[in-house]
């Protein structure tokens, strides 16, 4: 127990950095996902095919490849991003691309009558999408979004590959000094489990709080 406490203290800076990575990229990823999802349906032909290509690439590349491309590849165009910025950008792009697919599916599942009613009330297309369609679609996309955020919590550990001092990276250095791999990596697994379980709980809560009285939704 004492060892665990010491371990947590030793890892605390990494724990904070990991939480920080997630706290920034989760909301940004959800926002990007909502934007891309809406654009892929309401963006017109050209814009929606650009979005389609963009999501196909981002969901087809492993996150690690995207991250390494941003960190090591962008400087070849004269764009220099630090490790943390590169990691954040790759998390937001990747989770945004995946979330957009859920949002798109959710938008398409919404009854056409909603759109007709909004138009009958004299709303513009933008008003209709922002005030009528998206709030409902995002609610329906919560289970998918929750999955993606939980994936992102786990994949945040990959930021170590470009030198971000998050908790995996710190654990690995610590292990090379005190060499207690079993304890260190078990503690690390428990930390991620706790984060994922917490995220899962929060999304369930959000889902219940935001539920609209609709007969077709459980």
């Amino acid at each position, binding site marked *: 127990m004492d060892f665990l406490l010491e371990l947590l203290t030793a890892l605390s800076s990494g724990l904070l950095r990991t939480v920080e990575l997630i706290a920034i990229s989760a909301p940004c990823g959800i926002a990007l996902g909502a934007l891309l999802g809406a654009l892929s349906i309401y963006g017109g032909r050209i814009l929606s095919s650009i979005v389609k290509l963009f999501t*196909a*690439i981002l969901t*087809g*590349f*492993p*996150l*690690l*490849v*995207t991250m*390494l*491309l941003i960190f*090591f*590849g962008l*400087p*070849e165009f004269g764009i220099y991003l630090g490790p943390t910025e590169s990691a954040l950008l790759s998390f937001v792009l990747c989770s945004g691309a995946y979330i957009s697919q859920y949002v798109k599916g959710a938008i398409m599942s919404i009854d056409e009558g909603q759109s007709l009613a909004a138009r009958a009330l004299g709303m513009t297309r933008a008003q209709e999408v922002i005030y009528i369609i998206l709030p409902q679609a995002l609610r329906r996309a919560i289970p998918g979004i929750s999955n993606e955020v*939980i994936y992102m919590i*786990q*994949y*945040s*550990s*990959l930021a*170590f*590959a470009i030198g971000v001092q998050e908790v*995996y990276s710190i654990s*690995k250095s610590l*292990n090379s000094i005190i060499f207690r*791999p*079993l304890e*260190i*990596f*078990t503690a*690390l*697994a428990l930390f*991620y*489990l706790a984060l*994922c*379980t917490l995220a899962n709980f929060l999304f369930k809560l959000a889902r219940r709080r935001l539920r609209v009285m609709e007969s077709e939704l459980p």
Partner: protein
Amino acid sequence: MQLLDYIPFLVEGVPWTLALVFSGLTMGFSLGLPLSLIEAFGSRGAKLVVDAYVWFLRGTPLLVLLSLLYWGIFPSLGIKVSPFIASIVALGLRSSAYQSQIFRSALLSIESGQLLAARAMGMRDSQVVMHVLVPQALRIALPSWSNEYAIMLKDSSICFTLGVMEILTRAKYISTATGSALFPFLIAGLLYLALTRAGVEAIELLHRKVRIPGTLGGE
């Protein structure tokens, strides 16, 4: 050497990546299917144990699982494993948790009338499971299973941390050797993209062949 001269070296990573993926999926399947049977039909206690297993493996990053196995669990058991084997075990264990969930929901989606009919024909419960439920569940699960393939393909890139000679490890070598990062990582990304598409299409083809007539997915 020119950048293009490195392309064969990069492409030689494809069999390594595919070996990781197929071994991982096979291991995940052989563990996941029995687990799904427990989840769907097992006793309450057995279900709890499987739930805990699934919860642990789905909530632990692959990177952490890989490190725990390679540096922690295997050495403390006195087993010497290569990075390649450790990677397959990590991918396989994680996939078994995901596959158990895929097969569980497929099993539970089969109409209960089938179970009753099979019993009425005098089949034992084990026969019902083997000859009626599992063959259908596998076919129902195929679309979700294709997703699992795509996820594992991309996850296999994480094994570069142990230096398994798969696609990403080679891309990293090329990037170090040539000083150019854009080209090797872009080609690596496109290789993953192509392998994902090819695999998903192949599974879709298989799904069309084995789909169950008379179901919505089988039209």
